[in-house]
């Protein structure tokens, strides 16, 4: 069960490149793990480390304090590519709790929400405004559905209703799905011929 997410206030880290794919977020050679723990060490590995394993001093990811910059401000089409849930696991373990972009890949969005990592899509003007103020803290208020920065007008954002409720109340998606098993059983019994979906 993911940690609940209500309000987060933090500085942002900007990675403005477009199409940051899941192979950048966590390279495939680290996917032989059978656990979901400790992947932060491998987050953006090839951006952070040389081939010999020494840290790249120029990499911003080696210079920030991940406990202070918990919001990633990323270029368009963030986390495109594979379905690996290792991507949100790695980002969370590194220290990020949310990403703001103008476009975020579908599968990543669904994976992230299940792990208490909030993907937020904003339009380009909002993105530019946030990127122009890296020194200021940003508040992501999931309950109110808005992003606030200093005295700037609050910006509304949308998260799929059920995922939002799961995050706010700590509702367990699998538990909820299990509560529908009687319907599943009758679907399996009657199958396409006669099953009429009922409103649950």
């Amino acid at each position, binding site marked *: 069960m993911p940690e609940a997410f209500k309000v987060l206030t933090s500085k942002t880290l900007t990675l403005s490149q477009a199409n940051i794919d899941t192979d950048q977020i966590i390279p495939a050679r680290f996917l032989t793990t059978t656990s979901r723990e400790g992947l932060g060490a491998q987050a953006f590995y090839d951006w952070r480390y040389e081939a010999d394993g020494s840290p790249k001093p120029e990499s911003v990811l080696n210079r920030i304090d991940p406990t202070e910059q918990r919001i990633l401000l990323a270029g368009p089409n963030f986390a*495109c*590519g594979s*379905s*690996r849930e290792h991507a949100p696991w790695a980002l969370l373990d590194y220290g990020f709790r949310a990403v703001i972009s103008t476009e975020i890949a579908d599968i990543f969005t669904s994976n992230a929400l299940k792990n208490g990592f909030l993907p937020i899509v904003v339009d380009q003007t909002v993105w530019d405004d946030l990127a122009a103020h890296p020194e200021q803290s940003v508040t992501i208020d999931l309950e109110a559905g808005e992003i606030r920065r200093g005295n700037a007008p609050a910006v509304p954002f949308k998260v799929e209703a*059920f995922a939002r*409720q799961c995050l706010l109340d700590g509702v367990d998606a699998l538990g909820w799905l*299990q509560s*529908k098993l009687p*319907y599943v059983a009758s679907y399996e019994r009657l199958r396409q011929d006669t099953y009429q979906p009922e*409103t649950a």
Partner: protein
Amino acid sequence: MSQPKTMYEKVWDRHVVVPETAETPGVMYVDLHLVHEVTSPQAFSEIAARGLKVRRPDRTFATLDHSTPTLPAGPDGTLPYVTEQARKQVETLEANCARHGIELAGWGSDQRGVVHVMGPELGLTQPGMTVVCGDSHTATHGAFGALAFGIGTSEVGHVLATQCLLQRRAKAMRVTVDGRLRPGVSGKDVALAVIAAIGFGGGTGYVIEYAGEAVRALDMEGRMTLCNMSIEAGARAGMIAPDQTTVDWLRGRRHVPADYEAAAADWLSLASDPGAVFDKEVVLDGAAIRPMATWGTTPDAGAPVGAPVPQPRSASDQKAIDYMGFTAGEATTGHKVDVVFIGSCTNGRLPDLRAAADVLRGRKIQPGVRMLVVPGSEAVRRDAEAEGLDKVFTEAGAEWRIPGCSMCIAMNGDFVAPGQLAVSTSNRNFEGRQGKGARTILASPATAAASAVAGVLTDPRAYLEAPIHA
């Protein structure tokens, strides 16, 4: 008179267990759940931690493909895994399948293969089904008119425990490729042309239906190649209406329904109704498509082989061109190629290997080029060897391996070394996808084979028009 429906809506409607509302997503039934070693261990641990069982092991089918070596076991029978962790991951899936009664096409099985090659081959994938797998290239199975898409590991757990997924209906896009493809132009070239047209991310939120004369004329393998790469445009799923080609291809396969003719009649009714409305329409001229290759580090960076690298439109484009070691305005056909990879769930099927072999027959690959040919499954390997394709490859100087994902994802020990330039029939040219610092050009099997012979990226049509018969 009911509303005309798209194929996607028809398949979706058949699988609604609980309809979606504004507050809650729908509960969608899953007919077939495919499993591999990389994205499943944490899902099995999750259901174990909750004391749950696999609800429908009979609708679940597993294989070993990503972390598996493509070189045979040593004299002592030890498989050359890249790391102990890779071995452990494979053994974890073996144990999970044994514990839950899931059929596994494991080591020693003549059915083992890359998950998206194996499913259709065995007739597990059928039109009208919902098919999911913890793998973004699950869209491949949409070539049969199935609704097939990749899911994350949490969702793998949901499906294991309930045989269902929480889903909202996607938007529908139709991509029509009219006209006839020219000789030497394959499904891969169509896929790269489509992605270049839609853009990387242009399909986000959509299920794509591929239609048009050029698509209908593709064989099932070509259709799988096309649907496979839907995710490279951001679309979770791609579908093609079942037709006689589909019905003929599946007939006689191991898992198809006993009353095949009745099933086939139903499958043929799945096509989108005339007048069905799509949220977005894209039309391409098939006759205008040339053999394609990528010049950047995203799959939408495709252009005809020999075309100049475009002027960058953004800093990201410039970064991609720099990473590839190219220059805007130059043709990429002048750069020495180090590695050629033929395989993957995109292009590791028998017709793909035949297309490569047609170029290579009687020829040698350029000295200094390393060429790896990895069949997509044991069945493909058997069929290829029966036709003598393995000999064509090895006589040309290529390596013939045992099936798996191999250099497509480079997590099993097969990789492209830092800085090397590869022409690959796989689906992703991301930075480092084929190994840290690897530079990848995506292309068709014929183009990859021609490039191995020439030592530089090459349009295959010159070779195909002048075959050498040894």
